[in-house]
């Protein structure tokens, strides 16, 4: 059991099994849509978790990259008749480049300064999207043309369920491989102590930048996926609250846990749907649950439970 848990492919395999198993359980398109939203959020959260959980850097502007990815598949096909898939890649490329250029000066900063700098960056992107209405449709958003693959129009909740599920599994697989690579080791060293990592010969600024770029690409792809699923984008996807939501998902599920990213995303996407029955007390209950989880399971749900199980079952 412990060997299984320790295996580096445990998380992606578990996620793949969940995606397949749920497809047989979920009764209607509504549930499939909620699941697809979970997969999309989880994808962005895995990327952010690489940055927060493994490299120990906080980004409060990740929705900026998410929004850029979303608007890439909306704007590029509409303005330049680019195929949505190429637009998705272009969005990811642009986000990677922006993260590279912006990251170089920002990642010299530490702690709160880094958080504030990324916060500013995210807000800047959100403002640009809301204000350049000739390009982005402004605060009311703009439609996204339907994705066509080999003459087949991609639509329907179950189709998107499988596409987003596959994206998530791919993202999780890439993430665990990254973590297991020499780069991953350098990142963890950096997380534990930047000074020690530097003494051990790790190029701190270089590795921080790499992981920032990678996490930006994850967010961008997730944003593109959401825009394609919805067929419509609004600046909400890039706003500050969404950045906070992503960070909360990371912390709730467990920093440094790929599977925790899925759990965190699942809780924050599914719970509001469950709690609508409580009407006025919805936000109260959501806040209460988050507080209790953070107090009882201090290092996030998955790592805390894993540690608990390891202790009780020697």
């Amino acid at each position, binding site marked *: *059991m*412990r060997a*299984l*848990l320790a*295996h580096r492919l*445990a998380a992606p*395999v*578990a996620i793949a*099994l*969940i995606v397949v*198993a*749920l497809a047989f*359980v*979920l*009764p*209607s*398109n*509504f*549930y499939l*849509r*909620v*699941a697809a*939203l*979970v997969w999309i959020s989880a994808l962005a959260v895995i990327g952010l978790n690489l940055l927060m959980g493994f490299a120990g850097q906080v980004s409060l502007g990740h929705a900026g990259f998410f929004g850029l990815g979303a608007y890439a598949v909306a704007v590029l096909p509409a303005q330049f008749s680019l195929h949505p898939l190429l637009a998705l890649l272009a969005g990811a490329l642009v986000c990677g480049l922006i993260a590279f250029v912006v990251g170089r000066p920002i990642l010299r900063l530490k702690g709160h300064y880094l958080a504030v700098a990324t916060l500013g960056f995210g807000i800047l992107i959100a403002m640009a999207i809301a*204000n350049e*209405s000739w390009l982005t449709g*402004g*605060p*009311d*958003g703009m*439609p996204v043309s339907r994705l066509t693959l080999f003459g087949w129009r991609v639509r329907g*909740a179950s189709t998107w369920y499988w596409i987003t599920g596959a994206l998530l599994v791919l993202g999780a697989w890439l993430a665990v491989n990254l973590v297991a690579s020499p780069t991953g080791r350098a990142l963890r060293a950096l997380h534990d102590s930047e000074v020690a990592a530097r003494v051990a010969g790790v190029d701190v600024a270089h590795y921080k930048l790499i992981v920032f770029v990678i996490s930006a690409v994850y967010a961008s792809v997730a944003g593109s996926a*959401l825009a394609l699923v*919805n*067929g*419509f*984008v*609004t600046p*909400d*996807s890039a706003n500050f609250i969404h950045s906070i939501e992503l960070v909360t998902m990371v912390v709730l599920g467990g920093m440094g846990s790929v*599977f925790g990213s*899925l*759990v965190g995303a*699942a*809780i924050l996407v*599914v*719970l*509001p*749907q*469950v709690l*609508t*029955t409580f009407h006025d007390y*919805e*936000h109260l209950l959501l806040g209460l649950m988050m507080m209790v989880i953070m107090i009882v399971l201090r290092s996030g749900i*998955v790592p805390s*439970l*894993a540690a608990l*199980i390891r202790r009780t079952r020697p």
Partner: protein
Amino acid sequence: MTTLMKRMGLAALVAGAAAMASPASAADTIKIGSSLAITGPASFLGDPEAKTLELYVKKINEAGGVNGKQLELVVYDDGANANKARTFATRLVEDDGIVAMIGGSSTGATMAMIPVFEDAGIPFISLAGAVVIVDPVKPFVFKTPHTDKMACEKIFEDMKAKGIAKVGMISGTGGFGKSMHGQCLGVAGNYGIEIVADETYGPKDSDMTPQLTNIKSAPGLQAVVNPGFGQGPAIVTRNFKQLGFDVPLYQSHGVASKSFIELAGDAAEGVRLPASALLVAEKLPDSDPQKAVVTGYKAAYEEATGQPVSTFGGHAYDGLMMLVEAMQRAGSEDPQAIRDELEKTSGFMGTAGVVNMSPSDHLGLDLTAFRMLEIRDGDWVLAD
């Protein structure tokens, strides 16, 4: 361990899924869905809309329901978030099994929900403003509020009648101001209006004197228009007075609430704006065919909620009543039949005006629906 984790995750998701499932609907109720911005930055829209729907569904049910069946209203709060609205729309169609939909407080939320209802073939009456919702016409999508384009046309019509041709514009950069600004530029030519100055301000700006000074220096200026809502127009109005303009100021229907007059104070005196008859319900002449509807709604809303009536709740009233009449005419609650009857709505008197739908017009209001109001002694009066 992996299996255990997997099970935990699965159990959590399935438990969530089970909890979401709503009880099966009884066959003798008609389910109507709604997703509104009850909380969040657009709650001034969603809150009166939700209260109106709940109030009138209750009244209709007490009076025996529709076609002998009780109405059942399912309302979700999307906080004006388009992605959430889309999820709730899917939920209403797939899970709650609604036959018709009212709502979408904001244009973004409405546009995100449209594909869901078009695919499912369920009539959707939006309560949001922008003209893109019904232009081009989509078979299952209707809307009740006036469009910003109509507000521009009403203002320019009034100007043309007064011989005003050179106009300065100062627009908010929020969704409403931006959209209306574009529409005004588009229709200005039709009324022989020339925009001689065009300035903007941000949603959080606290002083618009520089922009207004620029406008004031524009040669031949005869009037100023201010599309926007929130506190921006109130600040513009105060700065406008301080700078001693000698031309009229036109606001939009976006400021049609008592709080605007309170914020702008004395400076609001003489400001003109196009708005719904609801604001001047008691002041309408008895001969006005709209008087009974607007005074009736105003009294009912204010008595039930203890809050002053707003035009936004009125849009929800119009949508619900149009829907009920369509169901009565159809004699069934088949979504396709309701849609067909909604499209045939004619001579319906709502709080927004007379509605005459057609296959090429899913709004059905014309310029007479707007009243040109003026603010005098801290209250709205009919301008003409």
